[in-house]
């Protein structure tokens, strides 16, 4: 057997595909071949890591999206007993004749088109037909006006009947609520924007959205994610922040690997974040898409697996009390996204350096992904 055959046998063993005889043969070889043993350990570990990959989540409105995208119902009509032979041919003839007759009758009975600016001629009919001039709107008022005077009674009436209300989109229009104790808030939803939209007023929407809450997830899609990450970090450095990073990230950035990168930062205001995004858009490797979204539980779990703790947990405040006062919180960078579980073993580095969060600063979980070829 060749080396490749043995390797395939190890892979088959990991898959549980070997017969008892083949297993015995492999055990003998493993006992004398340390490289094969190492390969077996690696393959088993790879399989375990594969099974541990975090499960991505779909938004809760996915079903509604699918249903709204359905183009036609697949209704199946029960099979009809179709006539055969001459009966079917006779049926086709009768159908054709009936259609022709219907067309002729329609043509005869249809009133002719009124001449321009004139009055439609009244067809000979045994029922009254209203004559309406094209520019005359009085007939509308006449229809609305009641035929007899109705005594005015003190019955509260709505200002507009439901049929008079203009059609509105329930997602974009706010309901009118007259109770001053009630305030209607727009729901926080994902805000996906292209580069073109961002440069043509989209950043204002981003800033507004950033100003509405403290925690945000920003996803940037760039052709060169390593470069975009470096630019983001550089912009943060320009604002006096420190950077913590891990060896994987350093190496990935150094090699400009086109994997995803993630950054946690809580030292930027909405205005500063918008300014940084604007500066990124001005570069040659500007991100092509941005998705701004509220942070969900899955994001916080990701951060916890990455940092060893959830930086958005308010209960962490006491841990930060020992942090050096006055220092700006650092920018934290993880390597490829999603973050490898167990990558960080000593998370005290983060907790000690995180520091106090200033008033008005956002908690940002930024993910920079690669797109295209």
């Amino acid at each position, binding site marked *: 057997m060749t080396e490749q055959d043995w390797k395939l046998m190890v*892979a088959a063993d990991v898959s549980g595909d070997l017969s008892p005889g083949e297993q015995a043969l492999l055990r003998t070889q493993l006992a004398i071949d340390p490289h094969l043993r*190492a390969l077996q350990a690696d393959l088993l570990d790879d399989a375990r*890591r594969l099974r541990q990959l975090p499960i991505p989540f779909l938004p809760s409105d996915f079903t509604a999206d699918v249903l709204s995208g359905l183009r036609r119902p697949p209704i*199946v009509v029960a099979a009809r007993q179709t006539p055969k032979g001459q009966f079917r041919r006779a049926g086709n003839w009768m159908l054709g004749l009936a259609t022709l007759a219907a067309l002729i009758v329609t043509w005869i009975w249809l009133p002719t088109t009124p001449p321009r600016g004139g009055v439609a001629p009244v067809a000979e009919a045994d029922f009254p037909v209203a004559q309406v001039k094209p520019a005359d709107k009085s007939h509308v008022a006449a229809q609305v006006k009641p035929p007899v005077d109705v005594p005015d009674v003190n019955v509260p009436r709505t200002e507009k009947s439901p049929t008079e209300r203009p059609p509105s989109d329930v997602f974009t229009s706010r309901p009118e609520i007259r109770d001053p104790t009630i305030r209607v808030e727009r729901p926080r939803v994902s805000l996906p924007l292209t580069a073109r939209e961002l440069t043509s007023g989209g950043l204002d929407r981003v800033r507004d959205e950033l100003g509405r809450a403290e925690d945000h997830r920003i996803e940037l899609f760039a052709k060169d994610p390593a470069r975009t990450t470096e630019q983001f970090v550089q912009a943060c450095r320009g604002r006096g922040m420190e950077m913590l990073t891990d060896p*994987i990230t350093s190496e990935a950035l150094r090699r400009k*690997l086109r994997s995803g990168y993630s950054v946690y930062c809580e030292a930027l205001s909405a205005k500063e974040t918008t300014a940084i995004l604007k500066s990124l858009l001005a570069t040659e490797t500007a991100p092509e898409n941005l998705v701004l979204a509220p942070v969900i539980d899955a994001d916080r779990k990701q951060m916890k697996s990455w940092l060893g703790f959830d930086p958005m947990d308010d209960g962490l405040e006491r841990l930060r009390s020992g942090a050096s006062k006055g220092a700006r919180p650092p920018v934290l960078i993880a390597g490829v996204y999603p973050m490898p579980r167990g990558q960080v073993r000593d998370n005290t580095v983060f907790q000690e350096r995180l520091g106090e969060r200033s008033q008005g600063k956002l908690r940002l979980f930024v993910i920079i992904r690669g797109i295209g070829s």
Partner: protein
Amino acid sequence: MANDDQSLIRQTLAGNQAAFGELVDRYQGRLFATVYRLIGHTEDSRDVVQEAFINAYEALDRFQGDAQFFTWLYRIAVNAAISLRRKRRPAGFSGQGGDLADRADESDGHRPGDALERAERVGLVQEALLALAPEFRTVLVLRELEGLKYERIAEILDVPIGTVRSRIHRARLDLRDIIAGMPAAGPEWNHD
């Protein structure tokens, strides 16, 4: 479960769209997870899964009851995912394919002793998965992440069971080669 699917399919064919909504609710999570593993892009995966459901709905009257609905749905989604992945050049390591071995050689951490530590990088496993050839990636995802049996995978991909088996073995070895070519992990963090 299968009977429930059949019942929901019948209701859908009778014009009850909500019944199809239940089918979507039932399978969207698993389908999305699988497609995401095959594509590695959230938005694209979402689009593929959505399109798969829509295609399934439109072809529901042609669905043969002898196969499981889930298998049939998987076949639609997996084929769409693979063709999308072929159309677009993959991001990440897969885009650079051939030079992985070179990168492994120049990596400081490429030592046999680092193997277990490197394997801890779950994120890199995801990247490596995307770098696999589509036919290998698909069988590995369906087997390891979905836990499907060979018979079911063969049914979904419409290939013999023996082919599924051999592809899985090859996929494991290729995945290992790719991971070995990635930069090494370290426990310490740098700061500047």
